[in-house]
């Protein structure tokens, strides 16, 4: 017994060693356009924005960065070499566009390395033809690391989350790769359907009714449990309606009205985090999120040479609140930061 007790006191590693180990196993991710705040596994990032504001595109960009390898046959791709899982609740994912973007990234990296050597036109074309089978092999390898599922309602979503642990274990055993990224497209997709179905009670009394809050809590609980065993970065998009003046003004007006009556000094508390949109997700999800970003499209277009006009998007960090607006545009090779 004495030796066992002593064994508890012997140190495993110093703080420096621990930091080294954690930083190599769980590196910080700087994914453009979310490069201002480094993200790690265990973070839950929420991308809010009105429709058509490139939210899904940012998710796809993150997935591509995750599935590309860091180094492959001498060419550096700058990826993570892990798997990514995409849970499509909006059911609008376009796989052809995804494969186009992946191809462009592969070719850009391949061309980038060849141009460094300093060869001129003919040589680079020959090199491109030589690289083609390698590119296709790499493309197939990366696409196999991208896992996709569609859910048409909340019960399918919950069933997916509940069996995800075993799926991930199987993936690890069969392919030997870890999943590093969990992407959820549109976490609020079933909001109205769940709200509507709360009026239908289930037969037995001892079961929980199908409420919006219960569904949300169950989903958050499952993801939390999953993150304990399989550390991943979770990114979710959320469709919001910006500038919903009626409801936000009504809320702030009511609050100001009775806070002024109660206590003249409480006015300071009201306007700390006034969101420019109306938050509709239940509290369980809101408290689960660790980082919040707002994206929207501006009316400006970036004239990109020939005929292409790419729209410019604005990105704002709400949590942690940074006082900066990033402008970016979406090109074939991915997201391109403008300022």
């Amino acid at each position, binding site marked *: 017994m004495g030796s066992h007790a002593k064994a508890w006191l012997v140190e495993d590693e110093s703080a420096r060693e621990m930091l080294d180990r954690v930083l190599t196993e769980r590196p910080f991710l700087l994914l453009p356009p979310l490069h201002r705040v480094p993200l790690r596994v265990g973070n839950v990032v929420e991308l809010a924005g009105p*429709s058509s504001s490139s939210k899904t595109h940012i998710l796809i960009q993150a997935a591509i960065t995750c599935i590309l390898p860091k180094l492959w046959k001498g060419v550096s791709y700058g990826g993570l070499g892990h798997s990514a899982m995409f849970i499509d609740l909006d*059911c609008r994912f376009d796989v052809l566009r995804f*494969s186009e973007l992946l191809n462009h990234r592969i070719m850009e990296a391949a061309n980038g390395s060849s141009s460094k050597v300093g060869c001129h036109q003919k040589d680079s074309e020959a090199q491109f033809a030589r690289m083609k089978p390698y590119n296709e092999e790499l493309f*197939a390898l*990366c*696409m196999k690391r991208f896992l*996709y599922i569609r859910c048409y309602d909340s*019960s399918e979503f919950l069933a997916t989350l509940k069996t995800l642990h075993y799926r991930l274990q199987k993936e690890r055993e069969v392919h030997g790769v870890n999943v590093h990224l969990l992407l959820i497209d549109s976490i609020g997709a079933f909001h109205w359907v769940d709200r*509507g179905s709360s009026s239908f009670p289930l037969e037995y009394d*001892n079961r929980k009714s199908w409420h919006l809050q219960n569904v949300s809590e169950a989903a958050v609980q499952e993801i939390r449990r999953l993150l304990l065993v399989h550390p991943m970065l979770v990114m979710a998009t959320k469709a919001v309606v910006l500038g919903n003046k009626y409801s936000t003004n009504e809320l702030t007006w009511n609050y100001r009205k009775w806070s002024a009556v109660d206590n003249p000094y409480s006015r300071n508390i009201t306007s700390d985090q006034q969101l420019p949109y109306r938050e509709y997700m239940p509290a369980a999800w809101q408290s689960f999120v660790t980082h919040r970003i707002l994206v929207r499209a501006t009316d400006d277009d970036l004239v990109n040479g020939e005929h292409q006009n790419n729209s410019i998007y604005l990105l704002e960090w709400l949590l942690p609140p940074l006082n900066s607006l990033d402008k970016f545009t979406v090109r074939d090779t991915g997201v391109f930061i403008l300022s």
Partner: protein
Amino acid sequence: MARLANLETEYPVLDSTVRNFCASHGIFSAAFAEQNDSSERLKEGIAQVLSIIDDMHQPWLNGMELLEDAKRNKHVFPTGIQGIDLLLGDGIRVGQLTELVGPSSSGKTQVCLRTASNVARNHMVLYLDTGNSFSPQCIAYFLGKTISPSSAQAKNQFLQKVMSNISCHSVFDIFAMFDVLHQLESYLRCQDGRGCCQMRLLIVDSISSLISPVLGSSSTLGRALMTSAGYLLKKLAHQHNLAVLVSFARVSSVLVWLN
């Protein structure tokens, strides 16, 4: 999610020992069960429960499988109208829900009829008409314009064949539409893979007249119906390889329904 007791008839491994074990862990329905190093029987029972839950969601696919499915099944159908085909990138795509939005009398029904006539040459089309705007004369006219001049009899035969590929239903409220779509789903489930002439296009003209009566400003049920209709259409499009075209007349106070 069914109660475990009710599942015993189907899956005899879920007998009372397994159910007691699950009950001791607070599991009364087919929910996530903690993996425990206990007897083989329990393990079997848990594996069975997990496979039941696995059946409740769509299968996981990897990127290559998705791409192959897209290339093999998800073709593009030209609408027959050059400008629109250019905007859409060659036409409407199987597996996707395409929405035509515009004020009234902006030609949405014409686009729908034109697309129907184009696709009906080779595939079956289901046209859900909400405002009695389906016109067989229009379709015959569009077809007549494009076929080469030949004998009246050949022309007639061609017209007959194409027109018989289009089936038109009138729906006047959203519940009737759900009815028709559920029937379509069961029909397509038996039909998939069989026969040469398959259904490839579903048109709903116009869906706004079905949705706006149920949408009130504060009712959640109306929006739930709208969202479920959207998901049913997307499911039909993806799983049964249909191109879905819906037209939507712009009504000022309605939220964009396909977010």
